């Protein structure tokens, strides 16, 4: 079933892909220069402290638990919305995806103000799992929807139980989607500061922020960040092993029949309970909290002009980041899915490394590079967009790769056999087939850029105020009635790209098949 061919990546694709890798490695380059500026001895001294090991253990533990929980919740969510005969499954899927629209610093604070006792490890697990499971759910739902159901019917008719079909046939086919989503979750957990800070669970990121905020020591922060870079490399390697050689691609087409969804009472009741819990925990708590801040002080009028300005600034930053990120991610995604080789996987992996770094580290590295090399753009839009791009590039690469892998390579082969050149095939077949995935990647980048905080704070053009920076501005002075309108607006505004991501990732996946469909 492996349709990726081990061939040379054509030069017109390889060049931009290498450029993407170089851009993606800016932070790693900065960290290395900064860290080794005072000699390797200093690096070992900073890293080999008694606390470091302890923090690595804590971070590893948190990453493992959140990743496992996200895989379970995400897969359950995907199963419920694709395999159980529930009414309104499309709406349900969007509701499941909506926690993507809520920044972790916000939902952590919502949980703390409701249940102060949750502080600590399990509080961090809840908040981070809610923020992350959609990264598993969306690709898994897409894969489940695209599976050829006749295979399952055949297995059943040969006497396999439903359970055997699930574990033996379905799961292996969605495994690449699960591991790819799990990787993004794990990298995000390593980088997160908002949730663990509010939950007071000390992780490795906590000491990196401490090095800036309490130690006033950017070079110590750089040294500690190298540990996260190493962790990211390990995770990326593990994932490519776990993904296995099997692609989740259906080569031929199935017959044009709809899958019969489970309608057994047990499954439906289970699905309803699961749905209510996912929505209640992931969406209910933060939304109710934010609405209660709004109600706290009703006499004060909402500064609508400022809110409108913040929406515009957020939107523009999100849009430009989305466009730039897609342009950089596209060659990487195509190379990684269609021209599998050591080269293309090295390029792809290099774009993932930054995702484990906290926003402040990426911001400072862009400051370092930008003020030396791109002075006229410093604290202007292009550099802010670059900073955001570095953070969200792997999300876009993963979405594009996932989408291309789900389309059949046979059509491209047909195009080539009919005389189309490599680039013409990419332009006229691969990209159009991947358009829904590209759109999903763009929307995903956009919604993340709109809620991003640390990079925006340092790199935004003077006077720009996004929804996220407004939330930050008022929450630092504990003015929660002023935070309310911005927080609620942010959730509503980012809900739109979230719905687009969901629909393009999952709902557009034709079932059983579009290429070579038999009518």
């Amino acid at each position, binding site marked *: 079933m492996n349709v990726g061919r081990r061939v040379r990546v054509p030069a017109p694709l390889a060049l931009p892909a290498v450029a993407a890798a170089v851009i993606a490695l800016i932070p790693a380059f900065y960290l290395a220069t900064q860290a080794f500026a005072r000699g390797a001895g200093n690096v070992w001294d900073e890293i080999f402290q008694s*606390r470091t090991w302890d923090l690595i253990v804590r971070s590893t533990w948190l990453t493992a638990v959140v990743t496992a929980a996200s895989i379970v919740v995400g897969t359950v969510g995907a199963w419920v919305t694709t395999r159980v005969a529930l009414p309104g499954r499309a709406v349900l899927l969007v509701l499941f995806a909506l926690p993507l629209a809520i920044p972790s610093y916000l939902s952590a*604070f919502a949980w*703390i*103000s409701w249940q*102060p006792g949750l*502080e*600590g*490890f399990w509080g961090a697990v809840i908040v981070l799992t809610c923020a992350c499971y959609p990264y598993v759910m969306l690709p898994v739902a897409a894969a489940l929807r695209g599976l050829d159901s006749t295979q399952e019917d055949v297995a059943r008719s040969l006497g396999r139980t439903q359970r055997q079909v699930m574990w033996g046939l379905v799961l292996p086919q969605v495994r690449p989607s699960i591991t790819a989503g799990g990787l993004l979750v794990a990298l995000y957990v390593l980088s997160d500061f908002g949730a663990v*800070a*509010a*939950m*007071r*669970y*000390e992780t490795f990121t*906590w000491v990196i922020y*401490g*090095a*800036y*905020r*309490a*130690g*006033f*020591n*950017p070079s110590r*922060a750089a040294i500690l960040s190298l540990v996260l870079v190493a962790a990211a490399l390990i995770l990326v390697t593990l994932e490519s092993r776990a993904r296995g050689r099997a692609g989740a691609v259906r080569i031929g087409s199935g017959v044009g029949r709809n899958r019969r969804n489970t309608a057994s009472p047990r499954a439906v009741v289970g699905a309803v309970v699961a749905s209510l819990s996912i929505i209640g925990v992931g969406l209910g708590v933060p939304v109710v909290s934010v609405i209660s801040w709004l109600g706290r002080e009703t006499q004060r009028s909402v500064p609508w*002009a*400022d809110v409108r*300005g913040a929406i*515009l*600034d957020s939107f*523009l930053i999100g849009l430009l980041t989305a466009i730039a990120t897609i342009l950089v991610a596209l060659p990487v995604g195509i190379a990684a899915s269609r021209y599998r080789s050591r080269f293309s996987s090295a390029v792809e992996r290099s774009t993932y490394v930054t995702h484990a770094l906290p926003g*402040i580290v990426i911001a*400072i590295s862009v*400051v*370092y590079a930008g*003020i*030396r090399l791109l*002075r006229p753009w*410093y*604290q202007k839009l292009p550099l802010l967009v670059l900073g955001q791009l570095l953070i969200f590039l792997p999300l876009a690469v993963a979405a594009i790769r996932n989408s291309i892998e789900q389309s059949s390579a046979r059509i491209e082969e047909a195009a080539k056999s009919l005389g189309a050149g490599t680039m013409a095939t990419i332009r006229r077949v691969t990209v159009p087939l991947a358009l829904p995935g590209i759109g999903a990647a763009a929307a995903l980048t956009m919604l993340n850029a709109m809620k991003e905080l*640390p990079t925006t*704070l*340092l790199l935004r053009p*003077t*006077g*720009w105020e996004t929804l996220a920076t407004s939330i930050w*501005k*008022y929450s*630092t*002075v*504990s*003015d929660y009635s002023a935070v309310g309108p911005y927080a609620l607006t942010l959730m509503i505004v980012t809900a739109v790209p979230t719905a687009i991501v969901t629909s393009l990732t999952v709902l557009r996946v034709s079932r059983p098949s579009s290429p070579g469909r038999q009518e």
Partner: protein
Amino acid sequence: MKCPRIVRFAGLAMAGSLLVVACGNDNAEPSAQTTKPTAGATITVYSGRSEKLIAPVLADFTAKTGIEVDLRAGDSGEMAALLVTEGDASPADLFFSQDAGALGAVEDAELLATLPQETLDMVDPAYRSQDGRWVATSGRMRVLVYNPGLTSEADLPVSVDDLLDAKWKGRIGFAPTNASWQSFVTALRVLRGEDAARAWLEGFAANDPIAYEKNGVVRDAVNSGEVAVGLVNHYYLYEKILAEGQDAVKAKNHYFRNGDPGSLVNVAGVGILRSSKNVAAAQALVDYLLSKDGQTYFAEKIFEYPVASGVAQYDELPSLADIAPPSIDLADLRSIEATQELLSDVGLLTK
């Protein structure tokens, strides 16, 4: 598409100038720098103080001098990291920090210019850099906020050591992640040594203090009677009275005296970047912040302790001479990272 900063500042400027005129119109004499070589200039200020706190005084400065201010606000430590990373190419003219530590870090990176002696002389030597590269603009004091319904005034502790008494078990609120609390612990380490500080923290932890997310939440918990007392900064009480009226607020401030670490005074301050191309305009802002108008804003509007120009503290506050806060070199409060490690160790910071 962008609501220009100027428009926003113009609005704030009008509001701000009304406030300042209303509260101090007898000293409307212009500061020395109003003599226009710098009017029309724009300076870039990196601030670790929140925009909400300082926007009014900056707007007033612009109204009085014609110098526009581009403000970039963030965490003080992150702003210091930004400045250190930018080095001589920084677009910033002035750094307005929430605490002395971040100013010291930028000073150590040799990025701050020496301030004129007459500027330095406006501020008590304890509240400025020894090398003359930054000055405090206002001070804040640690206090014990208490609920008179839950503790009699006679029972209130004379020293922070009295808080270790069993009678306070489970009745003290504090904000473990708050920078001012961590500065207090740092002062304890500096004043008494590592072992004594650890012993105090262990005793404190054994008394089951209640951790809250922020100082303001501690204050609210004291006011509502959730806990009897709380360790916070002095101005939180007055913020609440300003917002909700005196009748709504039961809580009161209790001060530690005679050099007790419990009444540590920490400062916010400013320094001018050596790389600034607008030194005169930046200096004008420093002078404005230390002038009668600037100091009156800090004293009357955000209830901080003024540090210059003979401006008196807010009426309800005791004078610094009255309290006799512990004498400490503010540069010694830099070791907050070590404080955080100690707090983690005794189980007071993280879970």
